[in-house]
């Protein structure tokens, strides 16, 4: 009977290719004092029909969400210039606004749009950036994110990460309480434009992006037990990578895109291996009777961090990788607290975010590798799966709110926080994509 059940579940794996616009709300749960005031004048649009996408609103929401900016509310805009030549800097100085964005959108004869914008420094009375971006109708949202990225980089000196994506898992209960539908989804960094790339009634977990953003590795129980898969995000083509006895879990794509660090228990207990994606050749990294799992790469590819309970409870350890994957010495990184797990390394390799237990609550903590200081970033409970934005500014994670699994994002300094709530089901295991290459 069990075998029959297994065969049936193996067959019942749906692959959806539909585009779904999830009903998403973003609540800023904690703003930042001293965020930079910026005025974004609604971009001029002289078309006969409504603009298919409110570009200004997308930019304003992006900047607000970062926690670094305090966009001036629409009704407080004292003036609405459309081009730089009409900007009266004195007017804006009175409002204590540091920066101003103006723009214009024009419908071209070929059906595409031309989006022009200018960014000004009010006090210096100079233009900091001015671009004209051609965009398809479908691409207007992405164009808005790219404008946000330009503004962010000009004013913060760090690349923006608005024009990126997040992968996550949603779980929806079906009919009788025991059946669930698991979906692996990819959406824009603001949660819009959701696409389901894999769907199953068996658990799906641990998505990991390839460094070129084209593939996602994940764990699926499609055949009744955990196996490792990789899938092309665009073509949806899927390949099963490993199916060893026991665990085939916790994939983490290497910075050069050639390998996955994975957890296998085929040799008796969970150990970290490096798997060559092309040849499936394995190199064993850890040798310990304890649990070793949840590997994450340093950006230079020369080492991993992982979770191990070799010292009793779970803690974060570091292992150096020699040439050809031969592993060097293992060093314990986390000391504060009785439970530290599921590390995510910042893009500059200087910080490690992790699930960090304080008393009976599970928060996201971030460990500074140089000072060895741990900062607790969240106040909610059951926080898990931290993932750094590719510019290192924010960490997205999963938590519980109102009895539902939701995603939240927090700035690395812990000062800005927001919650992304989807209308349906539990959302978990966010993985922030690398910068876009397409």
């Amino acid at each position, binding site marked *: *009977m*069990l*075998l029959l059940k297994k065969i049936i579940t193996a067959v019942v794996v749906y692959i959806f290719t539909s585009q779904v616009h999830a009903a998403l709300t973003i609540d800023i749960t904690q703003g930042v004092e001293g965020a930079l005031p910026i005025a974004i004048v609604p971009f001029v649009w002289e078309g006969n029909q409504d603009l298919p996408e409110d570009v200004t609103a997308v930019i304003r929401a992006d900047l607000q969400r970062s926690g670094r900016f305090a966009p001036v509310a629409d009704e407080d805009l004292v003036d609405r210039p459309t081009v730089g030549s009409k900007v009266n800097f004195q007017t804006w100085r009175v409002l204590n606004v540091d920066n101003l964005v103006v723009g214009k959108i024009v419908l071209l004869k070929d059906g595409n749009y031309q989006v022009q914008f200018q960014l000004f420094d009010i006090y210096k009375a100079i233009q900091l950036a001015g671009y004209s971006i051609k965009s398809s109708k479908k691409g207007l949202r992405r164009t808005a994110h790219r404008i946000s990225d330009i503004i962010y980089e000009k004013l913060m000196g760090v690349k923006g990460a608005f024009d990126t994506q997040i992968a996550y898992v949603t779980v929806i209960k079906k009919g009788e309480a025991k059946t669930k539908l698991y979906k692996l989804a990819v959406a824009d960094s603001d949660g819009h434009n959701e696409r389901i790339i894999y769907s199953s009634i068996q*658990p799906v*977990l*641990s998505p990991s992006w390839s460094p070129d953003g084209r593939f996602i590795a994940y764990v699926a*129980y499609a055949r*009744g*037990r*955990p196996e490792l898969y990789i899938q092309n995000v665009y073509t949806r083509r899927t390949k099963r990578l490993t199916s060893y006895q*026991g*665990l085939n*879990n*916790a994939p983490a794509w290497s910075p050069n895109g050639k390998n996955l660090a994975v*957890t296998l*228990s085929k040799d008796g*207990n*969970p150990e970290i291996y490096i798997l060559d994606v092309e040849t499936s050749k394995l190199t064993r990294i850890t040798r310990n009777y304890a*649990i070793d*799992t*949840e590997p994450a790469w340093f950006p230079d590819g020369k080492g991993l961090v992982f*979770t191990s*309970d070799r010292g009793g*409870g*779970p803690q974060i350890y570091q292992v150096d990788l020699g040439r050809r994957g031969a592993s060097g010495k293992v060093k314990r990184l986390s000391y504060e607290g009785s*439970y530290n*797990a*599921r590390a995510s390394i910042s893009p500059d390799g200087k910080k490690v975010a992790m*699930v960090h*237990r304080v008393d009976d609550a*599970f928060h996201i903590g971030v460990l500074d590798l140089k000072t060895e200081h741990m900062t607790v970033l969240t106040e909610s*409970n*059951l926080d*898990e*799966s931290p993932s750094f934005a590719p510019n290192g500014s924010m960490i997205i994670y999963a938590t*519980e709110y109102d*009895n539902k699994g939701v995603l939240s994002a927090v700035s690395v300094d812990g000062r800005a926080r927001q919650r992304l709530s989807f209308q349906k089901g539990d959302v*978990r*295991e966010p993985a922030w994509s690398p910068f876009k290459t397409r």
Partner: protein
Amino acid sequence: MRRLLELLLISALSLTMAACSTAGKKDEEASAEAEGTATEAGMLAGDSEENLSKRVIYFEFDSSVVKSEYQDVLTAHAEYIAGHADITVVLEGHADERGSREYNIALGERRAKAVQQLLTLQGVAQKQLQVISFGEERPVALGHDESAWSLNRRVELLYSGE
């Protein structure tokens, strides 16, 4: 050699459908001797049935230690499984929702393997047991408190062919 004899004995006995519990006991005694452990063999039939009806072993947080209260339950299962060579049992390991998902999958596997070891020590053939961990993916209780968590930290014995 002894192991081979045991297996032959078990299959011979189960083929003739004779006295299953005897086979189980013989196997257990032989195994106990082989492993040098002192397992209590004497057990009333009524207790055994009640113990066999218990198919979930519960654990403490972040622990894969099988509590002593489950010794009789697992002994009863070991006898029964060892006595029925055609039976296979899936040991499904689970964890509560706290902490990280992948660590919990590893923890669920270690729990299931702890149960597996206790069964094989008492004469169950390795091939009759299959270990699968679901970590925190399949909770039986949905609350976010200890009363729910304690029910979710478990290993389920799932008999096939029933």
